């Protein structure tokens, strides 16, 4: 008994494949002028359908079936343990410092603040010359931060406690895109930054010189998010965009290694599973999904009929058992990654949750919202 999805993909390719065959014939005859944009597009669609068929062939079991023998999760209680107030406008992004307690956050009014979130003290603050600072990142050493947004750039600020020094004075402009900066991340050192932009590309930069080391082309629209693979040997990262695609890249060559296109809308957030063998995505289609890199396919969907607003940011707990997702309906849903069910819903924010990250040692997670606050949950 053929599963219904297989039949669907056959339907899709039955007509276009004729065009594909014709195009192939004509190509061999050397009539390249007949390759119109439309026929290329059709050929691409048809191949995508065939690729999905190939991927489906080795899909012999569902994740929740395999997870039946795993113990169900008990009562789940997480509360807000800290509320960070100080931004005068929507909080758009945050990142943790490796010291497990400091964070950097950025907002719509251009303010970037470094907090010791344990004491809730603000330690540094700088005002960017642009609004909508949608990306910020903490350097691995803890000595600098990077941020950017509607200025189309990514800038690095060394953190100084010298009262005579103006943080903005030492600012270094690193990345230059032609549209807004949506995400940025340091690699394994303070000296390289990876960026994602509304101009449809990602790029790797040398911080010291501002030199472009590698650029990544392949998305069909704005790139909204990225995450570096946790591997010790690998040199890959995943990105998600408005073209509904999640793409895995080789940092060295700039090539796209794998691509997944199963979401129905913009992908706002991507995050690797702790083992590095998979990654999760959050989208405006109100679902989160899990993609396995070795099986080369989507292996789980986290959705509920009552959840109709987009997921803006996702992150895993340390063991990867839980997926925390912040939504545009002001809530945070906690998913059982293996069983596919929702474990809990957390209320508290009074506007969209725009950013969410689990702390480096997994003891808590931080959420930032359009309600101007950040919350630490544990």
């Amino acid at each position: 008994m053929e599963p219904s999805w297989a039949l669907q993909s056959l339907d899709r390719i039955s007509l276009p494949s004729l065009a594909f065959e014709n195009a192939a014939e004509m190509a061999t005859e050397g009539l390249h002028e007949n390759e119109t944009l439309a026929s290329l597009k059709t050929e691409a669609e048809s191949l995508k359908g065939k690729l999905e068929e190939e991927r489906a062939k080795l899909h012999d079991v569902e994740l929740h079936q395999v997870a039946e023998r795993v113990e169900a999760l008990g009562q789940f209680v997480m509360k807000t343990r800290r509320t960070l107030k100080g931004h005068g406008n929507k909080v758009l992004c945050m990142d943790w410092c490796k010291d497990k307690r400091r964070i950097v956050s950025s907002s719509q009014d251009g303010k970037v603040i470094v907090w010791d979130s344990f004491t809730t003290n603000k330690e540094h603050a700088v005002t960017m010359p642009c609004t909508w600072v949608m990306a910020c990142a903490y350097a691995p050493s803890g000595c600098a931060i990077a941020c950017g947004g509607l200025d189309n750039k990514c800038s690095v600020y060394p953190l100084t406690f010298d009262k005579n020094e103006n943080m903005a004075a030492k600012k270094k402009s690193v990345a230059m895109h032609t549209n807004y900066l949506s995400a940025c991340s340091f690699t394994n050192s303070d000296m390289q930054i990876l960026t994602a932009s509304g101009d449809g590309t990602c790029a790797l930069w040398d911080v010291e010189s501002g030199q472009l080391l590698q650029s990544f082309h392949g998305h069909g629209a704005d790139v909204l998010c990225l995450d570096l693979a946790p591997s010790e040997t690998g040199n890959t990262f995943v990105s998600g965009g408005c073209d509904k695609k999640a793409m895995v890249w080789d940092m060295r060559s700039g090539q796209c290694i794998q691509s997944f296109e199963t979401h129905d809308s913009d992908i706002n957030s991507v995050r690797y599973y702790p083992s590095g063998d998979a990654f999760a995505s959050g989208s405006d289609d109100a679902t989160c999904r899990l993609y396995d890199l070795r099986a080369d396919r989507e292996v789980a969907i986290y959705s509920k009929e009552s959840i109709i607003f987009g997921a803006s940011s996702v992150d895993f707990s340390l063991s990867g058992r839980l997926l925390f997702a912040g939504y545009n309906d002001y809530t945070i849903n906690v998913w059982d990654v293996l069983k596919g069910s929702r474990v809990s819903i957390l209320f508290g924010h009074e506007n969209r949750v725009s950013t969410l990250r689990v702390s480096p040692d997994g003891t808590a997670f931080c959420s930032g919202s359009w309600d101007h606050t950040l919350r630490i949950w544990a």
Partner: protein
Amino acid sequence: MTVGGPRGGHPRLQMPCLSKMERMIVSMQDPDMGIKMRNQRLLITVIPHAMTGNDIVEWLIQKYGISEEESLHLGNLIVKHGYIYPLKDPRSLTLRADESPYRFQTPYFWTSTKWPATELDYAIYLAKKNIRKQGDLIEHEKDNYNLLHKRINHTWDFVVMQAREQLRAAKQRRKGDRIVIDCQEQAYWLVNRPPPGAPSVLEQGPERRNCHTSRVQLNMDYYKREIEYCRKAMARTRVKSSICLEGYIKFNEQYVPHDPIMSGCLPSNPWITDDTTYWAMNAPTVLTPTKLRVERWGFDFSELLTDPLGRAQLLEFLKKEFSAENLSFWEACEELRYGEQSRIAEIVDSIYQQFLAPGATRWVNIDSKTMERTLEGIKTPHRYVMDDAQMHIYMLMKKDSYPRFLKSELYRNLLAEAVIPPETKKRVFPFMRKQRHSSPSPALLLPAGDAEDKIKGPTAVPEEES
């Protein structure tokens, strides 16, 4: 660069939630499975086809199997987006889980309707309100009225004429209908022209898919690349799902005990008890590591390598085996891969001198093919020139040294001496809040004496807990 908002050009494209909300609304009005509508009394007037706030909350609970809290939250969002409006207190778009009457908004006024709410329409609406009852305009409506009066002064006669005409037509209607139409309009304008300071549900953030600033061109090259990618991808080897998914189960088993959110942490989670002992005991360099931490080094070679303490122990072990240069070489290669662009040639040369040159003091044992390739490659040094050699040494350590490390006396002693911290329960008395001490910022790279001057003292203001 435009910022999408209530007055924007294509405001609804970024909101797939609206079509989902509309499907919900439609099923709420289903004659069989939807909400039971009846007449609701508003003072002396009877309004047909209405429901109570309670009805809405109950229906959502039943339909989606959610809690009352979630149902109320969802219902509130539906009202805030203008799909259901209150008949009592129509100036406040909130859902009350009581007998307050509500009605479904007419599709003409649905938030997803493509036609933008024009200034003219708004002016007519405000004029109507003003004419009908002086002082009926809310604060921000008064301000908007005055602003519009100035801005479109040339068409003001038309505005007033339209307003009067609409009012006249409305007088012909039954009182119940008049109230409904007023509430419908009021709700629509509250969504499209919210009072200043109040969050607008239509606000969306920076515009996406602006083709003028994009570097993407959906041209023939783009599709050729996609076709090329698909062809390559078809041929790649995949792993059966059953095997991959087993991996998650195993990973889960191994790591759940180490996951503080899942299994708690000893002595306690600092965020919950305000006690930072957990962080002190798990600091990057500590005299006696915890048992969980030492156990984790046995899960995977990368766990041992990423933990600075683990790496230090690995180095000690490798020294005993006279292969410490492998780890040093690997670290030097990492420095190259993630280092400054300007220092590449310098670092490559340093690596060559220390590890690869014939007679080098810390010569690494790589196979001859890789060595040949590498030596050739460093003639034109670049960031990835050591990749092959680095991988070879990494695999050597992982496949060869690592298993021996786990069986070694060194590791077994570490396990035996590792501590299991005793549990500290959360303080019973909520008013005796523990002082939250600050810690030195990593950005303070100063000698010990100076650092002491700059470390902030304990805070005096405890944060409120929810």
